C-alpha cells in the first residue's frame, strides 16, 4: 500500500515534471502534441472537479440549517438563491424562441433570463460595492495613522503623496513637474524594488519547483 500512497505519486510527479521540461525544450511534434494534450486534460479535469468547492460550502450551510444554529435563516436564504439560480440555469430560457433549451445546449451569458436578472440586480452591485468599500477603509486608515514618525516613514509618506497627487490630472495644472516626478518614482526606484523582489520570487519558485520534482516538497499530498 505504501507504494500506492507514497512512491507512486512522487514518481508520477517526477516523471510529469521531466516531461513538462522536455516539452519546452524539445522542438518535436510529439512533444508539442504532448503539451497540447496535457493542457487540455487539465482543463477537463477542472470541469470535472467543479463541484468540490461548492459541496464544502453548501455542506457548512446545510449543517447550520439542520442544527438551527445562530444565523441559520441567512443560510436558508443562501440556499434559496442558490436553488433559484441553478433552476434558471437548467431551464436555460431562450429569449429568441421563447422556449427552454435545457442544460445540454449552449448558453450565451448575455441571455436576459432569471439568472441574468439576479446577476444584475444582486450579484453585480453586491460584489462591486463590497470591493469598493476598501476605498473608505484605506482613506480612513491613511488619514488617522499615516505619520512621519521615522526617516523611513517620512520617505514613504513623501513618495505616497507625490504619487497620489501625480496620478490625478489636477496636478498637471499646478505643475508639470508633479506627474513627471510621480512617473519617475514609479518607473525607476519602484521598478528597481519590484525587480529585486521578483528575483527573489523567481529563485524561490524555481527552488520550490525542483523540491516538488524531487519529492522533497510533498505538501500537495496532504497529511500522511
Amino acid at each position, binding site marked *: 500500500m505504501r507504494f500506492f500512497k507514497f512512491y507512486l505519486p512522487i514518481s508520477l510527479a517526477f516523471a510529469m515534471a521531466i516531461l*513538462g521540461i522536455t516539452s519546452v525544450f524539445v522542438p518535436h511534434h510529439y512533444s508539442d502534441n504532448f503539451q497540447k494534450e496535457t493542457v487540455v486534460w487539465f482543463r477537463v479535469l477542472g470541469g470535472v472537479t467543479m463541484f468540490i468547492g461548492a459541496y464544502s460550502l453548501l455542506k457548512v450551510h446545510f449543517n447550520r440549517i439542520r442544527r438551527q444554529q445562530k444565523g441559520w435563516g441567512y443560510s436558508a436564504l443562501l440556499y434559496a438563491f442558490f436553488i433559484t439560480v441553478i433552476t434558471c440555469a437548467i431551464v436555460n430560457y431562450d429569449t429568441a424562441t421563447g422556449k427552454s433549451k435545457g442544460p445540454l445546449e449552449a448558453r450565451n451569458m448575455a441571455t436576459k433570463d432569471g439568472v441574468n436578472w439576479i446577476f444584475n440586480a444582486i450579484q453585480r452591485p453586491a460584489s462591486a460595492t463590497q470591493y469598493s468599500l476598501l476605498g473608505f477603509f484605506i482613506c480612513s486608515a491613511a488619514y488617522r495613522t499615516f505619520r512621519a514618525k521615522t526617516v523611513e516613514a517620512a520617505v514613504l*509618506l513623501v513618495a505616497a503623496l507625490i504619487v497620489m497627487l501625480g496620478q490625478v490630472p489636477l496636478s498637471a495644472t499646478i505643475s508639470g513637474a508633479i506627474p513627471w516626478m510621480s512617473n519617475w518614482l514609479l518607473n525607476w526606484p519602484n521598478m528597481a524594488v519590484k525587480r529585486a523582489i521578483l528575483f527573489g520570487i523567481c529563485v524561490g519558485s524555481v527552488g520550490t519547483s525542483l523540491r516538488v520534482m524531487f519529492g522533497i516538497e510533498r505538501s500537495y499530498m496532504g497529511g500522511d
Partner: protein
Amino acid sequence: MKKNDLLLIGGFALVMAVINIVLVATHRLHWVGRFDPKTLGTMVAAAITIAVMSQLYKDNALFKLAEHMLVGSALAYGLMVTWYAMWVTEIIPALSPLKTYGWQAVVHPMKIAEAANKPQLLGVWSIFLPAVLGLMMYTRLNKKYAWISRIPFAIMIGFGVGLAIPNEIQANLLKQLQATMVDLWHDPMTHQYSWNVLFAQIAFVGVMATLVYFFFSVEHKGAFGAVSRVGVWFLMIAFGASFGYTVQGRLSLLLGRINYLFHDWLAIVR
C-alpha cells in the same frame, strides 16, 4: 434572526419602497408597462448597494442579508458558467463520436477524432482519462480514501512545475537580469552619458540594495548594513508608490458605485 434584525430589514424595505415610488412618480425612474424587470432590477440593485454599504456603520442584518444572497447566487452562477463553458461546449461535444461511431471511437480514438474533426488528439480518451483523474480528486472528501487524490494532484503539479521551471527562468529571471545589466555609462541611442543613464544607475543601485536588504544570511552591520539601509529607503519609495496607486484604484471603484446610486438610480448626477 433577532426581532430587531427583522425590524431593520422591514423598515429598510419600506423606506426603499417609498423612495422608489417617489422616483417613479417624479419620472426620475421610468416604469414601462405593468411589470418592468429592468427598472425593478435597478431598484433592487440600489437597495443591495446601500445594504452592503451599511457595513460601514457597523455589522448588521442588512449587510448579512446581502452577503448571503451574493454567496448563494455567485456559487450557482460559478457552477453554471463552468458547466456551459466546459461541459456543454467542450466535454460533451468531444464525446459525440461515441454516438456516431460506437465502440470504434474507444478502440481507434485517434483515427475517429481526426475523421470527426475534433481538436482532442486522443479522441474520447482525452476526456475519459482526465475525467477519471477528476473523479479521483473527489476522494479528498473522504478521509479513508483521500490518498487516492494524491495521484491526480501529483500529475497536475508535476507537469505544472516542469513547465514552470524553464518558462519562469526565461520570462522572469533572464529577461529581468538582461534589463538590469545594461550599459551603465552610455546611452544606447547617443552613446553618451545622459539622464536615462543616471536613472538606470539609480535603478541598478536600487536592485542591488534591495537584494542586500533581503539577504539575511549575513548580519546587517557596517558597509553591508549601510547598503541594506539604502535598500530600505528604496523599499519605502516602492511602498509609497503602491499606496498612492491603491488609493487611486479603490477610489475609482467607489466612484463607480456612487455613480450607480446617484446617476442610474436617483438620476441626480447627469
